[in-house]
């Protein structure tokens, strides 16, 4: 098995009838998202804002009907885009974003879906020519639990971060933590924690969704889980580097000669 390429597969404007659309496939988990952006449109009187555009985000699940998880995803995307889109340029209008999950390994997993959804949405917003303050890019990092375990198929995506030894027992475990970028569900099930980080082009934090995700049956075995804040800050710095350098590069390459920047 060859090492999978790092860059996601992006196809722009697969839906010619919408103002902007994008299909995005995550390189490792093969999560495929299709988004379409329409706007500025006429807004329903109920949702009209006097000096801002209304943003509507609809996440459509790959299987079944939309439920609580999809509502949560769309509210997360909505709050991120709210700060990115210059809503005061089109007051009293509607910007409608529809994201369809085409393929996913785990249709209920929030961390696996959030990064492709955000990246795909931002690309289609650029295509649609919606005025935006800046461009953001999202990356999903998983910190692995067992450093000895062999991971296959992710050769290009692993990097190591020095761990701050907090106390006594930690130092025997080794002073490095292994971080995998854009993990698939198999790697995520081995992970200790999952971090979805979104940074703007300038390096400002747009969204953090970090959670402990180790397996277990709970109760007292869960005592002492979690991470130290200094480890997190180091990880976030690394995420920032990935988003600001590689993320921006991916956006630039994907858009190519389209003059949207």
């Amino acid at each position, binding site marked *: 098995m060859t090492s999978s390429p790092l860059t996601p597969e992006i196809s722009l404007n697969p839906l010619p009838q919408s103002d902007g659309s994008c299909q995005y496939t995550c390189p490792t988990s093969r999560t495929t998202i299709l988004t379409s952006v329409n706007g500025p449109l006429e807004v329903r009187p109920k949702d009209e804002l006097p000096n801002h555009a209304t943003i509507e985000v609809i996440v459509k699940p790959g299987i079944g009907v939309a439920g609580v998880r999809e*509502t949560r995803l769309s509210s*997360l995307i909505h709050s991120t885009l*709210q700060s990115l889109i210059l809503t005061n340029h089109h007051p009293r209008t509607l910007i409608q974003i529809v994201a369809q999950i085409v393929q996913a390994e785990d249709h209920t997993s929030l961390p696996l879906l959030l990064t492709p959804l955000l990246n795909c949405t931002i690309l289609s917003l650029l295509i649609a020519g919606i005025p935006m303050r800046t461009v953001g890019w999202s990356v999903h990092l998983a910190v692995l639990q067992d450093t000895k375990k062999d991971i296959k198929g992710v050769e290009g995506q692993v990097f190591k971060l020095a761990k701050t030894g907090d106390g006594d027992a930690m130092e025997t475990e080794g002073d490095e933590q292994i971080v995998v970028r854009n993990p698939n569900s198999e790697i995520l099930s081995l992970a200790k924690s999952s971090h979805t980080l979104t940074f703007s082009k300038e390096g400002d*934090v747009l969204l953090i*969704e970090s959670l*402990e995700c180790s*397996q277990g049956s709970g*109760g*007292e075995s869960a005592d002492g889980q979690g991470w130290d804040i200094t480890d997190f800050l180091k990880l976030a710095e690394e995420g920032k580097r990935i988003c600001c350098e590689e993320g921006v590069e991916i956006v630039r390459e994907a858009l190519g000669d389209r003059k949207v920047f």
Partner: protein
Amino acid sequence: MSILTPQPAGDSLPPPLTFSTSLFRQISPALYLERHLTHSPPTRPNGRSPSQCRDFTLTTNSLSHAHGSAVVRAGDTAVVCGIRGEILTVAPGDDPSRFESYHCPPTSATHACGSRGAGGASWGGLIIPNVELSTGCSKKYPLGPPGGLAQTLSDQLHELVNVTKLVSLDSLRIYDSDDGSGSSLASTKKIKGYWSLYLDVLCISLDGNILDAAWYAIVAALKSSRLPLASWNQTEERIFCQALLNHPISLRQSLPFTTTFALIPLPNSENHRKETAILLNDPDSYEEGEACEILTILCTTEFDPAQGDSPRFPLAGLRTRVEKIEKRGGWNIGLTQIESCLDLATSKAARYFQSLAKEQPAPL
């Protein structure tokens, strides 16, 4: 020649537009907040300092029909959490390990299990939280089907249960009562069913920061709840419960708590490029309406054994582990601010922990 000579500043100016404070509060919330927060020292309209959280009260076991309950009031936010245990019978072909793991990967079996009529147990395993806001708790959320906030909150609480692994799922087992053999070893007993816990959170009054209140209510209610002792009756081939409620739900030792911050932008007239902002701990709904960013930190505090079991403030002998950080919205909160917020979150978690320890468990 100019006719429009500047008038001397005197009586001829129209009287300045004045209105009462309460009207100002209603018509221009952003400016009203800004005036308060740019004051020195910055004070919020509700009288608190930016880093101060509201006092909270906790009452446990006030609902007689639930297996456990808690009422939490923080300022004008009041939530009730009731815990109801229901029995989930394990069918002969089922793999019990599936129920005993948080974050279990989805298989065709879990999808099949969902269709077996166990309510929400399909995607949630054994613990299912639900939030209801439509009780007239706030004029923003009228009666009707659960809206976006209620659904998001339910999902967030469900995620918190999974992330923290609060309840020891082993303690929810229901065994075969093999009185004859007398073997009390857990490994030899057969698992016949599970308790599935429904955590119903009802918001009585909503004045911001419902996540913290709801999560605290859930932790307190789980800690106070007592399930009946259930066992499998071989002759009847059913699970029977004893009338006495004396089977506690075992939780983690170090309990995690959430702390929420809201970031209010302060448009700075002198410096347009970099606008300043201020972080408010435990926002109320008026402040949440103006906030552009919300930061939630879930952390546990462990008291260092060297310091004894009476933690002093500020933060002596506390070790903090972060289990979840969620930041959504704008771009103003930097990584350094998250670090400073963690200190506030730690002290709040320690306060929660202390008040929970004071609460007397129900008599067996």
